[in-house]
């Protein structure tokens, strides 16, 4: 089954200024789309908008050819969004954080799977340390563990490489490549030069 996220004539205004206007965007399966632009050009806003978080936009959004608001549940069941803030609770351990995210999907959760996902992002042995005591990069990795843990077709990642060390960057690039090869798609903003084997399509903002 194919997936597709389309935006037609998308426009968004903030404080009397158009961040973008008349934007057409297609995200198809097996594709990485990278949103580029200087700071303040509306990358995060665009990602939030495409993840269905914001309602104050002009234009139309389609998911698999259907209007967004009609298929919202189906869209959300296939979306994994990692925002600017990692969404990791400082007062919980990485394991508890992941268990909550699993439960939010209505999944009973499996500790083995969570441990595997944490091991995969290089946090083996840190599963019972409070996330607040981990470094910024390690907290980001807890969020990134959700990419392994939760099977979703569309990944929307806002600056996923922030605070990640060099080995982590290489591992994440590999994971992105593997995801699109398996038929998924990725929508990403980053200032980092992406070295991913399949073609990365760039969309310029600002």
């Amino acid at each position, binding site marked *: 089954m194919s997936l597709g996220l389309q935006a037609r004539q998308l426009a968004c205004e903030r404080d009397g200024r158009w961040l973008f206007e008349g934007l057409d965007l297609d995200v198809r399966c097996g594709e990485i789309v990278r949103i580029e632009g200087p700071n303040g050009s509306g990358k995060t806003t665009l990602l939030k908008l495409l993840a269905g*978080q914001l*309602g104050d936009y002009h234009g139309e959004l389609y998911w698999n050819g259907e209007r967004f608001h009609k298929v919202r549940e189906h869209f*959300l069941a296939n979306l994994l969004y990692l925002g600017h803030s990692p969404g990791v609770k400082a007062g919980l351990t990485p394991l508890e954080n992941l268990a909550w995210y699993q439960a939010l*999907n209505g999944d009973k959760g499996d500790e083995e799977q969570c441990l595997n996902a944490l091991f995969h992002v290089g946090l083996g042995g840190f599963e019972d340390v409070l996330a607040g005591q981990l470094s910024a990069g390690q907290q980001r990795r807890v969020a990134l563990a959700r990419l392994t843990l939760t099977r979703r*077709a569309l990944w929307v990642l806002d600056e996923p490489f922030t605070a990640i060390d060099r080995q982590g960057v290489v591992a994440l690039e590999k994971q992105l490549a593997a995801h699109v090869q398996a038929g*998924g798609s990725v929508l990403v903003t980053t200032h980092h030069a992406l070295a991913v084997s399949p073609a990365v399509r760039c969309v310029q903002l600002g």
Partner: protein
Amino acid sequence: MLNTPAQGGLWIAFKATLKRDATLMFRRRGELLNPLVFFALVVTLFPIGISPDPVVLSLIAPGLLWVTALLAALLSLDSLFRTDYDDGSLEQLLLTPQPLAALGLAKVVAHWLFTGLPLAIVAPLLGVMLALPAGSYMVLSLSLAIGSASLSLIGAIGAALTVGIARGGVLLSLLILPLYIPVLIFGVGAVQAAINGDGIAAHLAMLGALFAASLLLAPWAIAASLRISING
């Protein structure tokens, strides 16, 4: 590769959110004690400030205990969604395939368990300090337990609306306080009735009705308010 929306699982998500918030609150025990300490301090100061005469105190005790408990509950509300907003988990909460109203309710239940319920349990002890007449202690606890559940539910709407504002505390109080007045009236009314030996059933029934109405309506208002806050 595509998933279809999972059926069910709401109960799992509800329980997990409740457990998560309870764990977080339990780990911040210092903050948890804040409303209780506030409650105890204010109640301690009144006999000193007004008069230690038991006759005077017993006259004002029901209203004083209820008003103080109400303000203590109000103080704790600001942080209900604030930390989730700051660390990005609120965004994630909005993007789950589960209904946001139910997950918001789970957070409110956790809030009530750790603020409203302790206030209701401690209130009789402080009632002794204010020479609250015998026979009204159970009613005080019961009316506070039911009433504070409504307070948490109604207050959460305001907390959700002001979560996007950096210093929303004052605005929250202004928004919520008028909605608290009916709960206060019937809560104090129940305790007064118990002291005077009148029937308390009518007051408790009204408190129950307020609770039922807020339980039914507040979750939807909380969900809508959270969406507005995130949009801003």
